């Protein structure tokens, strides 16, 4: 079933081009192949110069790699985006309510909607958070919700990333590179800007400061230069205008967090952390952690610092909880989910396990707590030995796995050495929550599986990225669009052309 021709976002089955892609198609058709190739290598050069690299774990030789960038942008129409955006806002609202409840009254368990053991035996259910209030009840300040399309109608949520989702620096840098690479395309399309993301993120972080009365001081806590996403950490701190700190730069005194500065200790109110819960405070969690800040949890529990995302959010992007998301949305919001879940078999349930074991070659099986494309089986692409090995794992610990049908992810035109062809894509929009609600910057990170037929888009598994454009529907082109009738223009901008005149004697 994975082999069937999926939904292509540019081309209809009869070869015609969808409206949204008309000018992209023309742009591609008009460019000789060597021009595309030179744009491609130019892009790579720019990324190298910017220094946007990531580290691959388990690959010593290529520890600083560029994520391949595809020069063909992905286009999503405004009307489609508006739908998707509403669904994302709804979903993140529900996730925040869910976390608040699960660490509080647990009404969803008492109502019998979620089995108690799925919560309490979950490794990401953080007992230190039980009964803990967080400012404005916001747990998930930054969410990266992975969505895919399989047809023209719906977006499906593949997973909710609500711990420390990464990739937003690519969303921003891809746009900058694309604007330089293809200025013509930008003149022809009115693409929604994404450059306000850092501002929106900073506003969200500032809004959840635990203490009023002074300017909130924010800092980004990174594990350091050896982390795979270090480039992104430094990039974001710079764009936000906040300090990039490591654990050793912070100290806790009187349950208050300070950073060590040349002018002495300076109070920190909001920490945007890119370190996992386990490593955040050796006093409270993993005692061997060198990355964390001893006493941070004490300060957090005393309400003297806000940690974003909140500690304990991991439970909400657990794949077992994922299967309950439609119920979770209905329970808290009383609304039907706007975005669909991918149908999922919970292997903890014996009937599902039986079905999954019988259909392994056509399913995707994932570890409940895995991420980054590690520890998963893509049935249609697996050898029989791999399938047998996975079957054994499954039988051994069924509760640790879920299975999904192999989705025929939509494809987008993608450039590679020998030409242009359709490749499977997903999309990670970034959703921000603060005291003033939830917002999504129009766009996101499109990841593309560069290998023909491959469905794995993770960068650690050879995926690439694309710039993602939200464009207005029905916009014709640079010359033909509507002009407004107001004509005060000339009188308004009284010109002042004197001063350049003074030097014209020069020749």
């Amino acid at each position: 079933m994975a082999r069937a021709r999926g939904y292509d976002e540019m081309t209809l089955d009869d070869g015609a081009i969808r409206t949204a892609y008309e000018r992209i198609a023309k742009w591609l058709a008009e460019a000789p192949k060597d021009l595309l190739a030179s744009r491609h290598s130019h892009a790579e050069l720019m990324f190298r110069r910017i220094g946007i690299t990531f580290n691959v774990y388990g690959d010593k030789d290529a520890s600083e790699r560029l994520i391949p960038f595809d020069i063909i942008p992905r286009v999503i129409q405004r009307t489609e985006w508006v739908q998707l955006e509403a669904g994302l806002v709804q979903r993140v609202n529900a996730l925040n309510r869910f976390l608040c409840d699960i660490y509080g009254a647990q009404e969803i368990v008492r109502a019998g909607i979620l089995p108690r053991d799925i919560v309490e035996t979950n490794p990401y259910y953080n007992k230190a958070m039980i009964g803990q209030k967080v400012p404005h009840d916001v747990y998930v300040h930054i969410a990266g919700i992975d969505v895919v399309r399989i047809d023209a109608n719906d977006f499906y949520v593949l997973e909710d990333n609500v711990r420390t989702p990464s990739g937003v620096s690519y969303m921003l840098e891809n746009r900058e590179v694309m604007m330089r690479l293809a200025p013509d395309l930008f003149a022809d399309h009115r693409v929604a800007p994404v450059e306000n993301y850092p501002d929106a993120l900073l506003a969200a972080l500032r809004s959840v400061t635990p203490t009023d009365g002074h300017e909130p001081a924010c800092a980004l806590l990174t594990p350091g230069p050896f982390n795979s996403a270090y480039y992104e950490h430094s990039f974001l701190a710079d764009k936000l205008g906040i300090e990039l700190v490591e654990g050793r730069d912070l100290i806790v005194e009187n349950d208050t967090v300070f950073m060590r500065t040349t002018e002495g200790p300076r109070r920190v109110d909001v920490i945007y952390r890119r370190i996992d819960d386990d490593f955040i405070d050796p006093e409270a969690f993993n005692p061997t952690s060198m990355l964390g800040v001893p006493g941070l949890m004490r300060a957090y529990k005393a309400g003297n610092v806000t940690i974003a995302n909140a500690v304990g959010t991991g439970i909400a992007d657990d794949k077992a909880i994922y299967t309950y998301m439609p119920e979770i949305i209905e329970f808290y919001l009383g609304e039907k989910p706007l975005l669909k879940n991918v149908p999922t078999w919970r292997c903890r349930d014996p009937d599902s396990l039986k079905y999954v074991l019988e259909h392994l070659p056509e399913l995707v099986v994932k570890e409940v707590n895995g991420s980054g494309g590690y520890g998963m089986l893509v049935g249609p692409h697996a050898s029989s030995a791999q399938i047998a090995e996975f079957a054994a794992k499954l039988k051994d610990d069924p509760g640790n796995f879920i299975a999904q049908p192999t989705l025929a992810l939509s494809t987008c035109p993608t450039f590679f050495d020998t030409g242009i062809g359709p490749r499977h894509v997903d999309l990670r929009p970034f959703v921000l929550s603060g005291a003033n609600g939830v917002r999504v910057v129009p766009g996101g990170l499109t990841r593309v599986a560069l290998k023909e037929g491959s469905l794995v888009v993770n960068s650690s598994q050879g995926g690439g990225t694309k710039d993602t454009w939200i464009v207005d529907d029905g916009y014709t082109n640079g010359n033909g669009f509507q002009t407004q009738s107001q004509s005060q223009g000339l009188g308004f901008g009284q010109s002042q052309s004197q001063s350049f005149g003074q030097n014209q004697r020069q020749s």
Partner: protein
Amino acid sequence: MLSRTADNLYWLSRYMERADFLARIVQATQRLTSLPVDYGQPRQGTEWESALASAGVEEAFLKTGAPMDEASVVEYLTFSVDNPSSIRNCIEYARANARSVRTALTIEMWEAINSAWFELKRFEQINIGRSRFDREELTRFLDFVKKMSLDFDGCAYRTMLRNDAYWFSRLGVYLERADNTARILDVKYHVLLPESEAIGGSLDYFQWTAILRAVSAHTAYHWVYRQSIKPWLVADLLILKMEMPRSLIACYDNIVYFLDALGRAYGIQGASQRHARNVMERLQTATTREIFQSGLHEFITTFVEDNSRLGETISAQYLVI
């Protein structure tokens, strides 16, 4: 030193700085024009008109009869032979000035400007031989212009003797830079917001962002203010912040410094020194609140006039006597 030599050095620096500014104006305008309809739609053509107004060449452009569109305006600002302030002419004039004071330049400075000129000729050939407006080529050209100006500036800074030759060349840089910073702030005034768009709305936001980017101050803004883009803070940064290397006050700090150096070396203070100190004093006592109350555009207009008057005064005192 010879007045003529001083004059050449001063204008050489001004033209190199201006070329850079024009490149930045074009890039900022391109960015403004690609904002989506959803963020409001300025009347078509307003952005390019505004670019011309900021560069102070709107009337001259209108006289050419060329249509007010991207291709014509960009051509006028970049390669036009008829526009005395086109990038092409700036580089031409800069080189002409450099040639006539070749011995007052260091080898590095001369090579920087001379190789920039050859590169310009190459771009001009491409431009002439082209059948249609080519944005990708334009991007490469504008990048080259910005790089060239950095290169020249760096050569002058690192290799010139610190004597009056250097001071005159620096005066050219800072006078021009102050003028350009003021003008770029004024772009926002000339771009019309659509009727439906409230000041402070999204389009307004992205326009201010484009202005900051145009002067490479987007990141600096965040480090200084640690909050989202506000018009009065942008103005504060570009007018009144001493830390911002191209703010009006930072430019005038330098202008006063180099004029003083000349005054001390020649043993005489004159109209230039007095005028520069006056402008500086006004900047030191100004506040953004005041500036916005009496109108940012009006403030900028006055400043640009004052700044040109300083240029004239310097000419009269030192260069054309």
